[in-house]
């Protein structure tokens, strides 16, 4: 018998008592439609020590200190308006060593979850491949207000499981030494979020 057949046969034998079907109760919250989701998101992000900026207008000042910037190939041109540093587009794909030498990466995201302060990247528009947001030390992420949902169940309905996903909640962190939180171990040490499309954002979409 192959290992596969044997394991499956063992498991079938183990279930000889024929356990009854299980009804899964799903009484948990599926949506949170409070009006201040963006504020909740900001609160959670700052709790993780991510830095939050409001409005696309904040980008030029943010990028002014970035010498070499990695971007996905399909980055919206307006995000780079006024940027004078070096733009490194991921085409042809930048090597890991290339990425290691860059100062920051600028991307969008797919969804952001207010309840948990989570930003989800799924390799969709303006996000690029996974290594892009991993190797550079600073990640600047643009989040549109229409991408913000309240709870995880709402986020999952917007995602395609076949795409590779990276869920980010604050910068990389460890608590392994006497439970002291230290930000920035192997992933980006700084996460900066630019929220656009807010009511108070004149350039918002």
């Amino acid at each position, binding site marked *: *018998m*192959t*290992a*596969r057949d*044997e*394991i*499956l*046969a*063992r*498991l079938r*034998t*183990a279930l000889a008592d024929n*356990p009854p*079907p*299980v*009804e*899964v*109760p799903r*009484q*948990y*919250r599926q949506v949170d439609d409070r009006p201040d989701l963006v504020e909740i998101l900001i609160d959670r992000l700052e709790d*993780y020590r991510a830095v939050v900026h409001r409005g696309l207008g904040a980008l030029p000042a943010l990028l002014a200190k970035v010498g070499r910037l990695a971007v996905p190939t399909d980055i919206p041109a307006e995000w780079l308006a006024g940027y004078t540093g070096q733009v490194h587009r991921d085409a042809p*794909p930048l090597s*890991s060593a290339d990425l*290691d030498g860059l100062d920051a990466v600028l991307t969008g995201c797919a969804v952001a979850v207010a*309840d*948990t302060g*989570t930003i989800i990247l799924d*390799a969709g528009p303006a996000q690029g*491949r*996974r*290594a892009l947001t*991993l190797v550079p030390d600073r990640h600047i992420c643009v989040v549109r207000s229409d991408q913000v949902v309240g709870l*995880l*169940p709402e*986020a999952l309905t917007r*995602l395609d*499981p*076949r*795409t*590779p*996903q*990276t869920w*980010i*909640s604050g*910068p*990389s*962190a*460890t*608590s*392994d*030494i006497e*439970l*002291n939180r*230290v930000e*920035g*171990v*192997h*992933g*980006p040490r700084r996460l900066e979020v630019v929220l656009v499309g807010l009511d108070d954002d004149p350039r918002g979409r």
Partner: protein
Amino acid sequence: MNRPGVDRSGTGASAAPATGGGRIRTPLPFPTAAAPAVADTQLRANLHRATRTIRGKRARVVDEVPDWEALRDAGAAIKADVQRRLPELLEQFEASATAAGATVHWARDAAEACRIVVELTRAAGADEVVKVKSMATQEIELNEALEAAGIAAYETDLAELIVQLGDDTPSHILVPAIHYNRAQIREIFHRRMPDAPADLSDEPSALAEAARAHLRRRFLSARVAVSGANFAIADTGTLVVVESEGNGRMCLTLPETLISVVGVEKLLPTFTDLEVFLQLLPRSSTGERMNPYTSMWTGVTPGDGPQSVHVVLVDNGRSAVLADPVGRPTLSCIRCSACLNVCPVYERAGGHAYGSVYPGPIGAILSPQLTGVADNASLPYASTLCGACYDVCPVKINIPEILVHLRQQAPHPLAERATMRVLSWVMRSPRRWAAALRLARAGAGPLGAYRERRTGARTLRRLPWPASAWTRSRDLPLPAPQTFREWWDQQ
């Protein structure tokens, strides 16, 4: 290492559920192994502080979720459904993952799983691998097997790195190096990390920075990575890894070949079920609303991440756990470690006393079921049955009930069995219980008053035979001076 009930032939004709091997067996009986930990005041202080801190954080973030109990109910039911349909869900997972470009392998036991990983690493032409923290690879003793095959395995989680460089074993599921303080970590780095700065301080940020620099080049050049998985999704073939430091993302993204070792019980039926488990897990384990990073991948994505993706599905005793209807819910465990942090026995004895890679209350039920109870007979006794682990478990595993069930199967000393039998006879009748309490108080009164005066503890250290078998490794709480009923009658 061959033990009865463990099929290591690799071709075994029997398809009866089988127990497993690897680092899940306690080499020493629990009381013996726990003695040095209990005597080590520094260790006890570390553990006390750590478990109390994490416990507090967990309670705070759980309290802010109004539907926590509904999530627990859903989590427990989804897992019960998985157990009931495990064979078909595994076949579904295999088909979906394969269709997405992954290769699925099956391993009956620890040795077979290790053999598969070694062969895959060799086939990739690599003599080193980077590793993401994973209980499954610790369970199968993969690092040892790789080393024996001439392949270097580098742990990349900070705590696992500390433990590996210290030639030690983890003491906690979530914070494996919790038994070290910063000075000890600095000393280990100085001794074993050739590229550590000469003037390395013991500040946590400096130590983390040293680890970052130490592993950076290795991440960027590694060709093979080995991971576990927190969840494997049957309907899509997706694997999920939850982590904090980004070392996981490095391993899961940069190498050409990715090998994930996954216990068969890790399945969830659908992608949507993650909405339950990704709420339950981070809050229960680190006490955060969400862990910094969660990675998901489904087979191979051209141009993004590893182009050679393997999944090794491991039985190693899980079929034996599944075969026991009472013990079966043990397979629901999502390794959050919440039960460790509330357990009075774990807090005093520490992780190493459990011998197995699975310590604490979950270890006390999981390890003996994986190996067969006879091989881990003392572990079901490593508990006061206080029930705190059950209250805190995000998937509602009734650990005390399973402990009692396993104790009934464990061969235990005659005297202890006799005591237990008498006790249970007494406890079955309210009249007998009240009489026994009166008797116990009459006997314990003077003794207890004496000890209370001297030590402030309302416990007895030693009882005469046959109860001595019981008090050898635990203090016996003295009965209260008055029962509630007696007090009520007086009011």
